[in-house]
């Protein structure tokens, strides 16, 4: 579904991705883990057309989508939920949702979809006329997840959705993602919360220094002692040479 081939790129002259390669199958959930600064968020930016790519290729369903603009990626069926807070603070919750479908030529359909996602996230209906800034951090994240569904994407890039969410809400978001996967949506997710994220994923991918270090079925990665070690602050090489 999505394939990265030897991707290099970064910010200005700073190179962050040093030959990132991986391939994820359709209708699956893949969790990307790795230490802080490994380039996890940068990979997402690269796919979504927000990074200066120096070499390498990004393929979607076999088609070259390298160096597309964000708008073109949206049109190709990709949506992106970045790390952190991503709402328009002074617009209402409803109008934030509406922005999720702003590129659509069928606004009547977008309005229907807004009603559907508000059924799915009743909190959003309750607060639909409030300014987004007035929501709690967890509620804002739910808004972002809901907003990403309006265009019925084929691929969702979601960066650390669990930050600021209560454990209950994290499970809720994970369930939403699994339901989407069951409907055929492909999900690529970054999570700090690696254990519970891998537990709900199909595949796991370890990224370090802008390169793919491990890529396997999620349960295999969960059972791998090197992964456990990684989360105690070590590096994979140390483990391999040790």
């Amino acid at each position, binding site marked *: 579904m999505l394939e990265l081939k030897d991707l290099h790129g970064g910010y200005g002259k700073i190179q962050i991705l040093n030959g990132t390669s991986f391939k994820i199958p359709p209708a699956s959930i893949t969790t990307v883990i790795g230490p802080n600064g490994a380039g996890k968020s940068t990979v997402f930016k690269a796919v979504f057309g927000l990074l200066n790519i120096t070499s390498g290729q990004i393929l979607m369903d076999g088609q070259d989508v390298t160096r597309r603009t*964000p*708008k073109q990626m949206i049109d190709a069926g990709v949506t992106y939920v970045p790390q952190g807070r991503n*709402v328009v*603070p002074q617009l209402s919750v409803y109008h934030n949702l*509406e922005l999720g479908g702003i590129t659509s030529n069928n606004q009547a359909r977008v309005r229907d979809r807004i009603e559907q996602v508000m059924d799915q996230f009743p909190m959003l209906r309750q607060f639909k006329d409030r300014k987004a800034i007035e929501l709690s951090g967890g509620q804002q994240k739910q808004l972002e997840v809901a907003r990403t569904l309006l265009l019925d994407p084929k691929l969702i890039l979601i960066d650390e959705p669990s930050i600021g969410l209560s454990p209950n809400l994290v499970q809720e978001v994970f369930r939403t993602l699994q339901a989407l996967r069951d409907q055929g949506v492909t999900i690529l997710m970054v999570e700090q919360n690696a254990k519970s994220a891998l537990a709900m994923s199909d595949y796991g991918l370890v990224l370090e220094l802008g390169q793919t270090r491990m890529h396997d079925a999620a349960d295999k990665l969960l059972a791998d002692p090197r992964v456990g070690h990684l989360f105690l602050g070590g590096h994979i090489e140390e483990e391999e040479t040790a």
Partner: protein
Amino acid sequence: MAEFIQILISGLSAGSIYALAAVGFTLLWQASQTINFAQGEFVMLPAFFVLALTVKLGLPLPLAIILAIFLSVLLLGAVFKKLVVEPMIQHGTLPLVIATIALGLLLKEGVKEFYSPLGQPFPSLFPQDVLSVFGAAVSIPDIANFVIAMGTIIGLQLFLARTRTGRCMQATAQNPDVAQILGVDIKKMVLYTFLINGALAAIASVLITPIYLAKFSNGEVLGLVAFIAAIVGGFNQIRGALVGGLLIGVIDNLSAGYVSAEYRQAVPMLLLIFVILVRPQGLLGTSEGRAV
């Protein structure tokens, strides 16, 4: 009492025109971090477009005004963005500020050099009659100016709040990163902001110039007042700029009427100092108005 009403109404009328300039100023800041110190000259210049079109080319006034607004949208909006803001903002906010100061001087000296250093009479748009309201003599131009300026600002507010394009402009101003990842054409939205500012400046220009004369130096006070009104209002809100403009207009007229015409110039400054000391985020400003 009659005198007070009179002064209040002419204050609101002048203030609503200041508000036009202040709102444009605020919009540019929100959308592109442009602090436009040429804003006063942007309000000075369109009156000269009108004069050039009527006096030199002999066009009828209404047509000249429409063309002048058009020219302002083009030159003070699109061309300003392309030739001044885009090249300079890459070097930072400060170089851009300096560039706008230079542009203001250029426009001022240009008009002085190529049109006239003398104040030019400017045709009044409305009958110079006076209405009696509760015993107060209220001039029709004052009322008409107020209605047009407020109508323009309210219309703009409605556009920003009630249309999808307006909301995309808000999203671009408040959180450009999010706007971009949702597929909003943020470059186009920023351009719209510049075009709107050009139109606001032109409208302010044709409303305010009949009160004085068209003169190259008109922008000095106007720019300062717009700047102060924007800060007083909180810098990041249209409503704030509106309140700031009205407040300055009223206070200015009241102090000219009851204190001294000589010191009126100092009044907006005093208001500015007062607001900065008491409420640094501005009267209606919020400290978290801009999330990045």
